[in-house]
């Protein structure tokens, strides 16, 4: 006794696409593409966030070195260090200026001179750590005025390093965008090849259905529905497979973002998931959606172009 026929058949497979072997590999190939896309996205976001972090930390900073700090200043009373500090503090565009004390100076030099710096009685310069406001000072004018008060004073701006770092970050982002484009193109080619193989395998069925009055949209829709599902599945598999790799990379990248192991109570596996940039949590689910869109559009285009050979 056969089962009673259901009134509405959810998925009527008139072209027999479920039996076609040609697209069985499709989800796995798309998964590989999605995996690469996830890495490229993560690389792009990481470059952007590191650049931002460095910029926030160092954009608004100057280091001023004053040789022979205790010697009297050229044009005013007081020591060279005091006059330079006063001059800097009185300049528009300066948020804060502070001379490093002996301990801080020793700490700064320790990597080069070892721990007994103070016993070496070297003629050390004073180092003034300067924080700038958003607008910043006129650096050339400031340098000239400082040189007048205390000749030999050096002003080191971090801006040039920042420009180089942000150029590097922008280049990395451009590479990631290029990689994403290539991955999308390869994914589209994979879907197109699978669709063409499906068309060749079901040619007779397609001709019969076409002869019975099916529109191009009807036939293309059957292929596109299947390609969309396969590509979405592949995209999801790829995104899931990329997760452990991304978490490991985020773990490695944390010290560069200013967090040290042990210095942060959240720095352990319990907060590992929080290590990924927030944007990545939005972009990872977009991978299956993007793959599905590529699958849909490619299958529609491929089938409609193929059908033009029929009258």
């Amino acid at each position: 006794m056969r089962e009673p026929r259901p009134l509405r058949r959810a998925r009527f497979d008139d072209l027999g696409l479920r039996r076609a072997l040609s697209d069985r590999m499709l989800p796995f190939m798309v998964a590989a593409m999605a995996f690469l896309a996830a890495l490229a996205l993560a690389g792009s976001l990481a470059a952007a966030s590191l650049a931002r972090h460095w910029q926030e930390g160092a954009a608004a900073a100057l280091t001023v070195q004053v040789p022979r700090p205790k010697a009297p200043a050229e044009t005013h009373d007081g020591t060279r260090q005091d006059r330079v500090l006063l001059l800097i503090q009185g300049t528009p565009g300066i948020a804060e200026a502070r001379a490093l004390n002996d301990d801080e100076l020793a700490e700064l030099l320790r990597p080069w001179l070892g721990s007994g710096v103070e016993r070496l009685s070297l003629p050390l310069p004073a180092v003034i750590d300067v924080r700038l406001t958003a607008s910043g000072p006129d650096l050339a004018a400031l340098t000239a005025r400082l040189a007048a008060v205390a000749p030999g004073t050096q002003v080191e701006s971090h801006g040039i390093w920042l420009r180089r770092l942000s150029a590097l970050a922008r280049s990395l982002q451009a590479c990631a965008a290029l990689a994403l484009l290539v991955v999308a193109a390869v994914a589209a080619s994979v879907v197109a090849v699978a669709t063409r193989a499906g068309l060749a395998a079901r040619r007779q069925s397609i001709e019969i259905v076409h002869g019975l009055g099916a529109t191009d949209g009807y036939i293309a829709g059957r292929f596109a529905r299947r390609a969309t599902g396969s590509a979405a599945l592949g995209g999801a598999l790829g995104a899931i497979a990329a997760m452990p790799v991304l978490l490991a990379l985020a773990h490695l990248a944390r010290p560069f973002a200013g967090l040290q192991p042990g210095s942060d109570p959240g720095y352990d596996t319990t907060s590992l998931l929080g290590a990924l940039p927030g944007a990545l949590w939005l972009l990872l689910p977009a991978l299956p959606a993007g793959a599905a869109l590529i699958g849909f559009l490619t299958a529609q285009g491929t089938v409609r172009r193929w059908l033009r050979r029929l009258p």
Partner: protein
Amino acid sequence: MVRFDHVGLQYESGGRSGPEVLHDLTFSVPEGGFRWLIGHSGAGKSSLLRLMYLAARPSRGKLTVLGTDIGAAERRALPRLRRRIGVVFQDFRLLPHLSAFDNVALPLRIGGRPEGQIRADVQEMLRWVGLAPKAEVLPAEMSGGEQQRVAIARAVVGRPSLLLADEPTGNLDDAQAARLMQLLRELNRLGTTVIVATHNDFLVDRHPAPALLLDHGRLIGDA
């Protein structure tokens, strides 16, 4: 209904035109008419049918099917027209992975009919061709005669205005052939235009009707 006006047909292969297989055909079949299409193998019967079921467009001349000029019609206008034409092929052209029910339901599903109506129509049609008990059977599990009847049910389930049949009795014994002819005449009486290609003289003698006589791609008789 169907009108040929100096129609010729050349097939193209690889972008190049082959020799003309139909030459300068001029005839018409009125609405509700019945015609035999007679000729030896290779006379051009199948090509003539292909023109009428819109699997090919004329290379020259003017072909009008169900009021539409086929040579001038836009490609996207043809699917709707095809749904008004039923075809019974010599080799059935059933979809092998679909049951008899689903094969017969195919034109209705393509036409977007509601599933409830499809079920009623298909079951009625399968009863009409005597295959109701075999609704869920695949074509490969049926005899040639049964497959032929599924093909006929599929051709007429959409109540076509034009029914074309290419050697429809080729796989049937005499009793089945007689029953098929009875079905075709019944449809014709209900208003469907019917054109049947055959080289079965016995069948033509048994069911006298006007005939189109083809030879080497030319029409040599229309009576």
